[in-house]
């Protein structure tokens, strides 16, 4: 059974009651960043019913929304004011930020971590707190809210998120270039990554047959977009949203981050038949037969890369730096000493 609190107070009461030794916070993000096993004694808690846009200040380019607000509903409201939340992701806003499963779509493009100004949250023991502010700039206190991004609800629940917005670009268009050789695709990908303006999203895809394509989105003034399309020979295309890979039975979906300069080495290390997808911001995905996953993850440090098997339950992923791992454990213990948030 899933608990569905409709307010911060209800969530606090639920957590304070101590009737639930383990709680799994449910968010509907773009997709699960990682599959985690559910403890047998876990209670599911969904914040989907907390779905109000509490504040939208177009002149300040900020808004405050509850975690259950759906991305597409927020987008609709923002568009009415000529604004956007300039990051990828679908589902609920809480799930999107908790998962952060895509990161920036191009160098310098915003990722969820750049757009979260502050939040109100509840610790596993029901303690309410806030961090950050609702204005675009504040350095008062420690940025505890940054820990929420990508935490998958394992540190605390967010009950109100203060977000930074951006004006909608004057013009935008999707592009797609198919049937490229790997060399051509990499060259064009690198060139688009180096553009200081106008490239909001760029994605490189090598399919299982070795054919490559580039897709993405340009945004800005129409004159500049036209210039970019000409310079990079980019054909306008229908916007299919961010491309995704999927794993079939016996295979695992792997996601990671890698520097562009190490991309060739990483690709050479993958089986030729492994599909590969990478966003300009450094996030990549590939699909491998299950037996090949662990060896690849162990080789990631040689590529200065980090990765995790998305679809394998409780995959440890590439080993983190020991000091960072110790800090992660210490932070989890500090915020949830009883280990309630499973």
């Amino acid at each position, binding site marked *: 059974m899933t608990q569905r609190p409709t307010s911060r107070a209800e969530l606090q009461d639920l957590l304070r009651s101590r009737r639930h030794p383990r709680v799994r916070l449910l968010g509907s993000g773009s997709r699960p*960043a*990682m599959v985690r096993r559910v403890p047998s004694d876990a209670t599911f808690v969904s914040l989907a019913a907390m779905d109000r846009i509490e504040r939208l200040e177009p*002149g*300040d380019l*900020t808004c405050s929304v509850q975690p259950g607000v759906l991305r597409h509903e927020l987008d609709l409201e923002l568009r009415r004011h*000529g604004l956007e939340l300039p990051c990828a992701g679908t589902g609920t806003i809480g799930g999107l930020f908790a998962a*952060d499963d895509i*990161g920036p779509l191009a160098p*310098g493009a915003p990722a969820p*971590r750049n757009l979260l100004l502050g939040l109100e949250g509840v*610790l596993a023991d029901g*303690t309410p*707190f*806030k*961090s950050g*502010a*609702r*204005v*675009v*700039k*504040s*350095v*008062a206190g*420690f*940025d505890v809210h*940054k*820990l929420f*991004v*990508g935490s998958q609800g394992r*540190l605390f629940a967010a009950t109100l998120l203060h977000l930074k917005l951006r004006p909608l670009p004057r013009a935008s268009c999707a592009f797609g270039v198919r049937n490229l050789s790997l060399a051509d695709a990499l060259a064009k990908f690198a060139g688009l990554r180096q553009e*200081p*303006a106008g490239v909001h999203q760029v994605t490189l895809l090598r399919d299982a047959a070795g054919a490559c394509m580039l897709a993405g989105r340009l945004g*800005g*003034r129409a*004159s500049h977009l036209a*210039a970019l399309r000409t310079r990079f020979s980019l054909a306008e295309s229908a916007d299919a949203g961010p491309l995704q890979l999927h794993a079939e039975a016996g295979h695992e979906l792997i996601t990671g*981050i*890698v*520097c*562009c*300069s190490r991309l060739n080495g990483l690709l050479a290390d993958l089986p030729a038949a492994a599909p590969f997808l990478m966003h300009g911001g450094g*996030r990549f995905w590939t699909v491998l037969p299950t037996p090949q996953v662990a060896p690849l993850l162990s080789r990631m440090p040689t590529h*200065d890369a*980090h*990765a*995790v098997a998305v679809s394998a339950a409780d*995959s440890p*992923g590439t080993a*983190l*730096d*020991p*000091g*960072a791992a*110790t*800090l*992660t454990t210490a*932070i989890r*213990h*500090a*915020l949830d000493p009883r280990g309630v948030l499973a």
Partner: protein
Amino acid sequence: MFAPMPALERRLTDLLGAARVITARDALLAWECDGFTVHRALPRAVVLPESTAEVQAIVQLLHGENVPFVPRGAGTCLSGGPTPSVPAVVIELARMKRVLHVSPDDLLAVVQPGVVNLDLTLAVQHLGLHYAPDPSSQSVCTIGGNLAENSGGPHCFKYGMTTDHMLGAVVVLPDGSLARLGQNAGPRAPHALDLPGVFCGSEGTFGIATEIMVRLSRDQESVRTLLAAFATMTAACRTVGDIVAAGLVPAALEILDQATIRAVEASVYRAGYPEDAAAVLLVEIDGPRQVVDEEAAEIRGLFLARSPLRIEEASTPAERKRLWKGRKGAFGAMGRLNTDLYVLDGVVPRTRLVEALDRIHAIAERHGVLLTNVFHAGDGNLHPNISYDGRDAAQTARTVAAGREILQVCLDLGGSITGEHGIGSEKLDYMALMYDPTDLEVMARVRTAFNPSGLCNPGKVLPTRNACAEVAKWPKMVERVLDDHQRRGGDR
């Protein structure tokens, strides 16, 4: 308090050599404060490491001896962050000033903490790259200090703050162990927490960064600076709102008030600003040349709709430098107004700028203090500056009292007590005005995860546990600082 500490000094000298361990009282005076000169305190010693290994050895020694320590960059902080709150050893990182690695393909650099902000841009400009965060002190402040404070600057409106450009860091934790937060490819691996995000802005209380990975930005093809002078501050602020409402995202939106304009024009930073103007608005736009042309035309139209006294436009580096000279030199120019300057750093929602400025002026009048305003209008980040004579106790007290009321106005309007200068020791008590005890308790828990011994820069950012009681009795803490300041007036 300042008794010699021969045993510890000997051991520090064993690590670094005598030339890099400073304990003489006269020499220590150089480290008694940062840009927040109200709070002064001599460190027990200053050490000058040159490598991660040396920092680690120092911290291990101090941790073993239970001696507090404070990391410090160039000392340009404006909130007392690197000024010891208890007798402590200052670990000065200015000698760690090498750019270790630059990767143009990856748009990243790895630097030591003592690299000066502007020097990083100078080191990569031949590659068509720059480091975007540009605090006003960028010609002297260090990347390590920027990381500690999550520094901002005029170009935050478009490009964000230090945290938005930080990929990771190698950190000596307060127990002397090492941790690598983030990585070259990005601040957060898919299965990791955003440790760089929470470390950035921790004001030297979470550990000491000895290698910092930062994102570089590709230079724009064209940059243009526009100036509009207005007869009223309201018109200048409304123009900022017009620009944002039009969907434009300039690189910078800065305003100087008349008192600042006059101080600048009477100084070596003279930029040719009209002294009869109530406010000057500087707008910088960058991007492809054609885009900049289009946006400049649009912005000129928005200027004209608010009946400016004058419009100027600068395209060449020399012209742009002139227009920026007054803004960049504004704080220096205020040295003409009195012996001391208290630089405040509140934030309000951009749409509340006019109301905030009206209320701030009323506060200044009521306290009889000399106030100037120069601020990042695009971010709503105000810098009300109070010029005062620090030798005059009554004037200093009025200054601090006015400052406290100004920050309360920022909070009342839904803002923050600091946009880019940090809490340090200056705003320690004000934290409880912005946050509840449970908020502070959660922050304290995170700090304890990094700094369980509490030895790393103690007494900063978070007030003590009875903060609410302290605030109820405000301004006890500030009075204490002022009393101490006046007792040691002979040092100045």
